[in-house]
């Protein structure tokens, strides 16, 4: 049935909500759609809110309308929708419509589920929930001349063919990542505080001061709001991280060239953090982790990058460091814990695919730091996590 399209879209990760689905129904009910081509574009305009999801939409569209290539077949499909005569075509009164509009999402969800439940039980009644606007787009032509026209002229090419072209493949955000896109994602990292010169009028204070001044105007200024986010980036380099070197350096340059942070610090480590971290990728210039924890305030947003893949001993044992000469007195996990406890906002970005996160060390680290995949989507989620108030 037609509602399945909604779920096919959801399955393909197009974030469609009930609100949008209802809007589409409204558009259908209003008779704004003449043929499959128009349906393709209009449904896209209403349901998809970012060009990064256009490709997902194309894939979903193909899946749902698969095998329907010629206009004739589309007509048949549409006819099929129309075949079931609608008994429950009650028209909503304007009051009811208004009520419907006011329902919040949860109620709508419930309502939808309820009606969907009816739909499986009683096939021909299945269309009635879409009749929100009081008329249904799926009416018989006699009932609803404004509905989908059967056998209407179709455009130069069929919608399914447009979907097959998948012209928006390059816009997907779960595949490609470049520095600019990462910068975009990092822009989300902001926290506005009042700093800098006093250039904003403080109205309340001005009124008070003026009143106190017997009506002679006294202007009081305050500081305007600026971004005060400080970022600490700790990156795992070498060994199993080598395949991801390019990705990591992209993230680094994105963070480094983002001018809107108040402070940006970065250090390197290998596999796990022990007594020291390093200022350079060759791991020659040491900085003691202790010093780091003492000098950096807890409000630094901490981004750890690494695959967290290591032998359990590296994490759990004294002298467990992969580098023999490191001789760590405390096991790596203790250091990790200290770091996690010190910084109120921290995330771990893992360049490995999430399906490979089964290793014990990865799971352990994942318990200490919220872990996200190093993709644009993951970075976006991580940034969201970093700005929420309670770490």
């Amino acid at each position, binding site marked *: 049935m037609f509602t399945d399209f909604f779920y096919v879209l959801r399955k393909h990760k197009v974030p469609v909500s009930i609100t949008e689905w209802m809007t589409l129904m409204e558009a259908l009910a209003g008779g704004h759609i003449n043929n499959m081509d128009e349906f393709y574009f209009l449904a896209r*305009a209403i349901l998809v*809110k*970012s060009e990064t999801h256009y490709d997902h939409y194309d894939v979903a569209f193909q899946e749902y309308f698969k095998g329907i290539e010629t206009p004739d077949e589309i007509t048949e499909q549409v006819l099929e929708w129309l075949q079931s005569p609608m008994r429950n075509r009650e028209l909503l009164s304007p009051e009811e419509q208004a009520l419907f509009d006011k329902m919040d999402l949860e109620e709508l969800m419930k309502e939808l589920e309820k009606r969907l439940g009816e739909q499986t039980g009683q096939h021909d009644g299945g269309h009635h929930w879409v009749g929100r606007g009081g008329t249904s787009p799926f009416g018989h032509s006699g009932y609803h001349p404004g509905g989908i026209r059967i056998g209407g002229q179709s455009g130069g090419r069929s919608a399914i063919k447009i979907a097959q072209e998948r012209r928006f493949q390059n816009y997907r955000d779960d595949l490609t990542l470049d520095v600019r896109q990462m910068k975009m994602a990092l822009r989300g990292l902001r926290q506005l505080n009042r700093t800098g010169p006093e250039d904003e009028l403080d109205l309340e204070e001005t009124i008070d001061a003026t009143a106190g001044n017997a009506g002679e105007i006294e202007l009081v200024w305050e500081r305007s709001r600026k971004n005060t986010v400080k970022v600490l980036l700790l990156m795992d380099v070498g060994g199993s991280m080598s395949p991801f070197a390019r990705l990591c350096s992209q993230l680094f340059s994105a963070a480094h060239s983002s001018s809107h942070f108040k402070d940006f610090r970065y250090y390197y480590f290998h596999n796990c953090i022990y007594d020291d971290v390093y200022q350079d990728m060759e791991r020659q210039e040491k900085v003691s982790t202790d010093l780091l924890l003492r000098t950096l305030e807890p409000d630094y947003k901490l981004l750890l990058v690494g695959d967290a893949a290591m032998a359990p001993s590296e994490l759990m044992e004294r002298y467990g460091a992969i580098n023999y000469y490191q001789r760590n007195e405390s096991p790596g996990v203790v250091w990790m814990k200290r770091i996690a406890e010190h910084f109120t906002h921290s995330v771990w970005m893992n360049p490995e695919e999430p399906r490979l996160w089964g290793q014990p060390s990865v799971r352990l680290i994942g318990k200490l730091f919220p872990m996200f995949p190093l993709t644009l989507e993951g970075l976006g989620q991580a940034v969201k996590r970093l700005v929420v108030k309670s770490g």
Partner: protein
Amino acid sequence: MKNASFDQFKGSADYVTSEPLRNAVNVSIALGRPLLIRGEPGTGKTMLARSIAKALEKKLITWHVKSTTKAQEGLYLYDTVQRLNDSRFGDKDVADIKHYIKLGKLGRAFTAPEQVVLLIDEVDKADIEFPNDLLNELDEMSFHIPETNETITAIHRPVTVITSNAEKELPDAFLRRCIFHYIEFPDAKLMEEIVGVHFPDLKPGLLKEALKVFYSLREIEEFRKKPSTSELIDWIRALMAGGISHDDIAKEVPFMGTLLKKETDYDYFVNNYMTRVGDTLVIRRR
């Protein structure tokens, strides 16, 4: 059969649209929802609103959003300082707060006696919270002024066009209420039409050569700013004014500065693609 009132927007004489875009505009008008337009710079996002206003013969109200813009400014401003100031002299009626309430762009669009086209330009420039702050106002098309206890309700729902350069992620709640369209960079065929609108008596030979050069320039990934439609229009204007014959276009790329605006891009192109023959720079043969 379509509703007669649906096909309102058919494009205007000076603005070429694709059919999906026209449909998106019309459905947003019919459903009374804001139309969110995204696309590369120079694809005519802002021009669209102007074109809609012209085609529907409605007034256009433009609200340019800047990084400091607050949602409140679009609704109304309460000029307290003026009121305080006036209170000292007593020559104006300070008791009536209404004199000091100035409606913003949104407020004016709501109170206009006729339906207007409202353009909220570059919505992503402002603070991340900005679109969320406007949710209710755009949804219900009304807002309340606590100072005067007045509620401003839209007399006619304005046709709302919102443009975004995708500099910031827009909030989901905001997106859910919009109709979205992404303007792709026009392909050569559509571009021919667009250029044709600007230069009705351009020689086809010149246009063809110019477009060929233009699209091959756009394929160079190393550019920091790829030339866009507005650069192309400027360039063609320069070519016509300079009376350049179309053989020279592909050979020398005259007036390259109108196409490549960044010095680094310009240098990159000259160093990698051109060579000096006598006094002139010509495209290197490959």
